[in-house]
Every structure is written in structure tokens, then in C-alpha cells.
């Protein structure tokens, strides 16, 4: 029982990161039709900014304050970076979707290579606040505290995004744009501002995922953006493109399945530790066979 609880909560922690990446991807795709291959780079930018400021702001009190401040700076850097990418690279290529995808592919490769050139290919240890590594006992399971932080952050983002989309004027424009962009333009609304906004939101969410992944894995590496991005893609396809709640549900499904399969596959069936990844991809295949439009029903 305690193992099951631990696996579930760890799966939720992983799902939190998947959701943070997938929500931005899904919004960007839903509104602009751009599959953003540079989204993994946004995560890397957030993760490295958090790490860099965390190691350089040594004057700041204890580790927790330093982590919070550096993560906050990381989020700002992520937002700034994503906004610049949208303005400089995506905007000049509006309506040319393939070219936009190609540009994000090039940016993702070049950016990751640059990070690798500057800080090296190997992972670097990340100093985590001590209380995050300690455990809380829930139903007999010793759960590391950082899982709660991840789950809380993702839940806050989910609520915040939903409130933004449902209750504000800009949210209304974004939702309308996802439904029918041409109509929104015809009503005299400059959708392009919403494009930049959505990119900035995606950048913040991905950078937050980066800052959290530093704690979850206890290190920073240049490769993590790409590897998490692949699972975020799976989450987006399973959840249905353009749907935030769909992404959240799919992220939970993927994260938890991965953890269960990893543990039970390795202990009872002796399938090795990567069986979780393979199970998730098989799950994707299955869902595509049964329901090609994804869980939320939006046609991909």
C-alpha cells in the first residue's frame, strides 16, 4: 500500500512537469498552429537560469530563499526568451506553418548545442533546499517533500490558466482564436498580440517546469529539455491539441502510468526500468487506434 501511495504521488510530481510543458505547447498549437520544437529549450533556459542564479546569489540568506528568488528570475528569463523568439523568429513567418516548425527545430538544436558548449555536456549538481529532500509520511509512504511543491505549482498554473482563459478579456480572445482565428481577425481584433502573449505564457510555464525539474532530478543537464519534450508531445496528443484540461488529465495518466509500469514492471515482471517509457508510448498507440482525436475530442 505504502509503495502504491508513493508511486502515485511521485507520478503526480512527474505529471506536474509534463503538464507545465504540455499546456504551453497545446495553447501555442491550438492558437497559432505552430508545433513548437523549441519548447524544450524554454525549459532548459529556465532550468539553467535558476541554477546559475542559485549558485551566484550566494549572499542571499538560506537555500530556500535563494531557490525561490532564482526560480523567479528563471521564470522572467523564460518569459523574455519566449517573447523574443515569437517576435523575432515566428512572427515574420506567419501563415507558413511548416517554416515555423522548421525554425523552432533549428532553434532547439542550436540553443541546446550552445548550452552544451558553455556549461558542458555532463549534468551538474543542483543545490536543493534541505526540507525538500526530507520526507512526509502519508498513509505509511515516505514522500519526498519536493513532490508537493511540483504538484502545488502545476495545480496553481492550471487554476490560473483556466481563470485567465475563462474570466479575462484576453483569455476570451485566446479562446476565440483557438476556435476560429479568421473570425476573430475579421472582428477587428489584433490576434497577433494574443500570439505573443501565449508564447510568453508557454515560456513561463516551461521555465517553471525547468526550475522544478532541477529539484526533482537534483541536477541540470542540457538534454533534459528534449527528453521531457517528447513526453509532453505524447501528453498533448493524448489530451487533444489545444485543450488545457485535456493536457492536465493526460499528464496525470501518463505520469502515473509511467511510475506504476516502471515499478511493477521491474519488480514483478523483471522488465527493467525503462518499461514505463515504453508502456506510455504503447498507451499512445492504443489511444490513437481507439480515439484518434485525443481524450478531449478536439480533432488533431
Amino acid at each position: 500500500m505504502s509503495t502504491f501511495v508513493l508511486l502515485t504521488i511521485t507520478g503526480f510530481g512527474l505529471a506536474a512537469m509534463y503538464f507545465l510543458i504540455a499546456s504551453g505547447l497545446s495553447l501555442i498549437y491550438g492558437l497559432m498552429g505552430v508545433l513548437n520544437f523549441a519548447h524544450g529549450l524554454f525549459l532548459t533556459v529556465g532550468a539553467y537560469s535558476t541554477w546559475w542564479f542559485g549558485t551566484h546569489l550566494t549572499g542571499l540568506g538560506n537555500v530556500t530563499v535563494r531557490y525561490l528568488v532564482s526560480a523567479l528570475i528563471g521564470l522572467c528569463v523564460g518569459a523574455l526568451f519566449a517573447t523574443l523568439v515569437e517576435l523575432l523568429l515566428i512572427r515574420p513567418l506567419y501563415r507558413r506553418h511548416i517554416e515555423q516548425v522548421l525554425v523552432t527545430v533549428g532553434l532547439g538544436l542550436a540553443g541546446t548545442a550552445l548550452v552544451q558548449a558553455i556549461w558542458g555536456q555532463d549534468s551538474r549538481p543542483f543545490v536543493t533546499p534541505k526540507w525538500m529532500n526530507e520526507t512526509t509520511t502519508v498513509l505509511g509512504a515516505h514522500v519526498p517533500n519536493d513532490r508537493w511543491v511540483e504538484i502545488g505549482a502545476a495545480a496553481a498554473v492550471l487554476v490560473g490558466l483556466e481563470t485567465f482563459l475563462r474570466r479575462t478579456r484576453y483569455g476570451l480572445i485566446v479562446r476565440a482564436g483557438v476556435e476560429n482565428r479568421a473570425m476573430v481577425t475579421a472582428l477587428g481584433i489584433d490576434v497577433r498580440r494574443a500570439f505573443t502573449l501565449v508564447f510568453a505564457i508557454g515560456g513561463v510555464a516551461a521555465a517553471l517546469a525547468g526550475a522544478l525539474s532541477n529539484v526533482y532530478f537534483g541536477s541540470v543537464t542540457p538534454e533534459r529539455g528534449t527528453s521531457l519534450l517528447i513526453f509532453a508531445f505524447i501528453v498533448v496528443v493524448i489530451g487533444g491539441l489545444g485543450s488545457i484540461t485535456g493536457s492536465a488529465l493526460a499528464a496525470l495518466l501518463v505520469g502515473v502510468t509511467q511510475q506504476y509500469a516502471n515499478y511493477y514492471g521491474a519488480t514483478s515482471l523483471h522488465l527493467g526500468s525503462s518499461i514505463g517509457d515504453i508502456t506510455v508510448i504503447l498507451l499512445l498507440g492504443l489511444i490513437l487506434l481507439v480515439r484518434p482525436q485525443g481524450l478531449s475530442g478536439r480533432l488533431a
Partner: protein
Amino acid sequence: MIRRFWNVALPVALVVALAFVPQISVDIPKLFNGPIDSPGTLQLLATCLVFAGLALTYDLLFGYTGLLSFGHALYFAVGVYLPAIAMTKWGWGFWESLAITAAFGLALPFVLGAVSLRVTGIAFAMVTLAFAQVGAVLAIKNPHGWTGGEEGFGTDFEKLPAALVGVFNTKHLYWLALGYAAAVFLIVRWAVESSPGRVWQAIRENELRVEVLGLRPHSFKLMAFVLSSFLATAGGAVYLLTSLTGPSPSVTSPNITLTLLIMVVLGGAGTRWGAVIGGVLYKYFENRLGAIGDSPTVHDLPGILRTPLSEPLFLLGTLFILLVFFLPGGVARLSLRGRRAGLRRFEQALASQTTPVGGGIEKAT
């Protein structure tokens, strides 16, 4: 008539000329590290040719059929890993290993393609990426000790025909790679000019219209997918032989697919020569830029310039972005700019004004 003649004569002349390259012992200092007939240079050229062929197989999918797959590396990796595993771990002979690879190289894309082609566009891209990721995970996970994990493993060279082993036989490997590139070129040309090939191009232009005409796009797309993936598997096997080492997980990385995409776009999607040129140029620059990064001239530069220059992928990624902006259509379209480029722009302007459903503009020829 004259055009037909050149269509045949030019490739033949090029292949014959390239076949004589290993006999030239000229040293071109800036372009290559050693004389052209030295094993190192021949191996670089062989890699360039293998990737020219691979880029062509990707062009068949992306350029001709309009399928943006991000999982092409999987089929390439099958060709690299499976023969090596069969020979080294299972103790099979050379030809049996190739036979099982060919069989698997047909069956795998058939199954995976049938599933992933249920979705289109961007979702297809993501699904193929996910399937390819299984391959990458398996290669690192090392099931039954077959794949050697992150290190990969060395191939059992005893099993290979003697003509393909040893530094003195590098020219044979070069010819093998040349043969592969030429074969893929011919097959792709034959395929896209056959009647299914015309349907592929029709699907690229307007899938709905193909469906309305009473054809099933799914089976045609699957055909293109299987053919292209099978040729990529063959390319993987050639790569295994020419690389002189065993397989390593880097061949399963999604970056392989992305570089193929870059090659095709660099050269010009939907043109055979473009893919060939893109593949050769990319591999050549990837190799030579690494050498430039290590050269003393770059080492003396201040850190802020030196660090990015030491990473070929950074330079190539940046170059790629610039190309997408300033040279859409790639190198192969350079000669077609002018009148045809103007026509294309006119077509696009028209197409963007009409609704896309069923309203594709006839391709001007």
C-alpha cells in the same frame, strides 16, 4: 528528348566520375585532412554519400508525400543495430543477418505506419517521434545484453566479407556507399514517377481532393512510408559497414531525424538533387566544422566567440534558421528563382485568399 537524355546522362556521368575518386591521390589542404585516397577522407566521403541517400529517403516522405515524420531515425537505427546484433550476439552469418534485417525493416514500418498514419499533420509528427523514442529507450536499456547500453558494442568483423574489412579496403566501403546513394536515387526517381508516386504528390498538394476522387490516401501514404523506411534501414546497414565501429545509441537519437529534415530543407524539399546536395553538404560541414573548432585559429579567439564555434550543431542550427528565412526552397531552388519563384508567390497569394477545402490551385507547370 534532349531533356530526357540529360536526365539519364547526368546521373550516370556523376556516378562514374565519383567512382574514380579513390584513385585520385591529390591533397587539397583546406577541404580535407589528408589526400583524397587516404582512408580518413574516403570514409568522410562515404558517410556523406550514405547521408545523401538517407536524405533522399526522407525527401520521399516529407518532400514528395508531405508527411512530416519525426521518427525516421528508428528505421535507420534498425539497419545499424539489427545486423550487428545478429552477427555478434546471435552468431549468425553475414547474409542471414542482412536477410532478417530486410524482413524486419519491412514489417516494422508496416505496423507502425498503419497506426501512426491514422492521424495527420502535426499529430503524425509527434506520434512518429514517440515510436522512435521506444527505439532509443531500447538501445540504452540493453535488453538481454544485446544493444550494449550507452556504450554500444563492437561488431564481430570476422563475419564480414574480407573485402569490406581493414583500412586498405576503405575504397570498397566508399564504393558501397556510392552504390547505396545511386540505388536510392534511382528507386526514388522510379517511385515518384510511377502512378502511386503521382498519387503521393497529389496527397501532398491536397489530400481531400484525392479522397474525393475515390482513392484511399491511407494506403498510398503507408506505401510511401514503408518504402522510405525500408530504404533508410538499408542505409543503416551500409552506415554500419562504413563506420568501421559497432552501433551506438547516438544513431537512435531524434537529432538524426532532425538533421535529415535539415538536409532536405537545406537542399530543397521535393527535389532529388536538393536532398543529395543537402545530405553531402551537411555531413561534410558537420565533420569539418568540428575540425575548425579544434584548430589553433579558433583556439586563439576570445572565449565568447570560441565557445559557440566549437559546437558544429550550433552553427548548423543557426545556418538552418537563416536558410528558412532567406532561401526558402533550398539550394536546388536557387536556379529556379526568378520567373518560377514569382509564379509560386502568385499561386500562394491566390491560395491564401480562397478557402483551402477543395480549393487548391492547379500547379502551374
